[in-house]
């Protein structure tokens, strides 16, 4: 089977989406990272992939964004419409919060006036008003992640790729940022492909949770999460929530074996 390139979404579809059809990835060193993965994310959907560490979850995002090329299968989607939020905040240490938020728009050559407006808007959106002139070293981990989010939001992507963005944060900060991310999702109705190894995070955020097996990563289970949006923080304490999380956990346990 020959690998197709990432091709733009057909124009008849108005909404952006990512479509993986039987995608496999083997690295040059022989590591078989992803095996026959098919998945689809449409705008307005929040799809999360959970799986053990090193199962090739991040590779899916690298393929979707065009940073890496699958060795087999087809990927449809337009990387230009996607916002990639990295595992680390990856802020430029020498730039202030304001200039970090401005970075992508600057690289893409957006007119200065529009940039200024969007940067101010999104700094406000992530609750960092008043911190514009601070340098990353003066920020906590949670604040850095907010800057990273705002930086992607400036480009107004219709599809987000999240690579364990809150993995390095403490539980309280993580839940807090989950709540905020969901509010943004409800407000903006983008699509999201989210990678995590936290089951609770996955169930709380998603419309659909996919469970990936240990390497070579393949999708072994799929759960539709029925809770309506906007979701409130106390959803986490409900019996339904616990039950679903239990099911996902069980599937993950099976995947690990």
């Amino acid at each position, binding site marked *: 089977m020959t690998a197709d390139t990432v091709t733009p979404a057909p124009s008849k579809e108005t909404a952006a989406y990512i479509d993986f059809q039987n995608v496999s990835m083997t690295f040059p060193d022989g590591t078989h990272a992803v095996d026959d993965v098919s998945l689809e994310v449409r705008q307005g959907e929040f799809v999360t992939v959970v799986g053990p560490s090193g199962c090739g979850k991040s590779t899916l995002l*690298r393929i979707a*964004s*065009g*940073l890496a090329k699958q060795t087999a299968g087809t990927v449809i989607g337009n*990387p230009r419409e996607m916002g*990639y939020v*990295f*595992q*680390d905040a*990856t802020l*430029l*240490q*020498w*730039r202030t919060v304001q200039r970090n938020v401005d*970075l*992508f728009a600057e*690289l*893409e050559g957006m007119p200065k006036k529009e940039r200024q407006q969007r940067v101010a808007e999104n700094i*406000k*959106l*992530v*609750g*960092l*008003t*008043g*911190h514009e002139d*601070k*340098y*990353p*070293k*003066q*920020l*906590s*981990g*949670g*604040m850095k992640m907010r800057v990273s989010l705002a930086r992607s939001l400036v480009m107004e992507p219709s599809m987000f790729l999240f690579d364990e963005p809150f993995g390095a*944060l*403490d539980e*309280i*900060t993580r839940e*807090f*940022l989950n*709540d*905020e991310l969901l*509010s*943004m999702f*409800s*407000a*903006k109705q983008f699509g999201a492909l989210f990678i995590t190894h936290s089951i609770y995070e996955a169930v709380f955020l998603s419309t659909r949770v996919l469970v990936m097996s240990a390497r070579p990563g393949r999708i072994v289970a799929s759960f539709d999460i029925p809770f309506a949006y*906007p979701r409130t*923080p106390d959803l986490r304490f409900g019996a339904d929530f616990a039950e679903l999380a239990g099911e996902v956990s069980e599937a993950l346990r099976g995947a690990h074996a």
Partner: protein
Amino acid sequence: MSASTETGTIQASDGVGPEEDVQQAVPLAAPTDGKSRKWIELIGPVLALFLFIGIWYLMHYWALEAVFDRPAFLITEPDRVIEESFLDSDNRTTLLQGLYWTTVVAMCGLAISIVLGMTIAIGMAQAQWLERSFWPYLVALQAIPILAITPIIASVFGFGFSARILVCVIISLFPIVSNTLFGLLSADRMQHDMFTLHGAGRRTRLMKLQLPGAMPAIFTGFRIAAGLSVIGAVVGELFFRRGEKGIGILLDVFRQRNNYPLMYGALLLSSMLGIVVFSLFGWIGNKVVGKWYESTREGR
């Protein structure tokens, strides 16, 4: 947390979340209060200075004769060095003029090293084959005993100013290339991916990611090279003696005349020059990157 979905504005109740306490830069020293810390910071250097001068006197008045069985005049006592070198106006003028010329040579050499070294490093960061091909020669250049190639430098460049500057460049080039290159290559993979995703070319990557991120390393290189350029200038003057009389020339003249007080005076001046240029580049570096760079030790 209240989220007003109509406007899409998300705000935490207190503006920011519970984790948002801004980290203050806490000095890594022992938890002492400000006053006693200041006191320790002052007393240490003063003690070190007294110790230094004490050992100097000890050498002159006791150790040279009693331990090493050599005449005491080989190490002039500090007060006599000061008196003859800096209180006598003729001698002072000679020494300060020497200092001036050495400074000129050192700074010319350093400037050339900075321009040349950064160019080489940027080229190597852009093309790995350049690095692989030329790196060994740079290491070799640094390892060459400069005295061994002095005769060749002299026969090609003469015994004047340009030969001295060349010695300076040879000595101070390597730390600039190695530190700049290290800095340029230290941008992490995710940051590079980020630039790739947003269509950044080589030039943009260099100007907006690699060079700014390399500044702390670059200034470390400048600082080391600045100190070395003074050594280069003095060593150069010891061998290439045509023209202006820099400190290196004076050192040799005084040694030949057995004028030890002035020789130590000249040594003191060249050390001072080294300290000054080293600190100057430390200071400039701190001005440039201090605002954002998280160094492991405060106040360096």
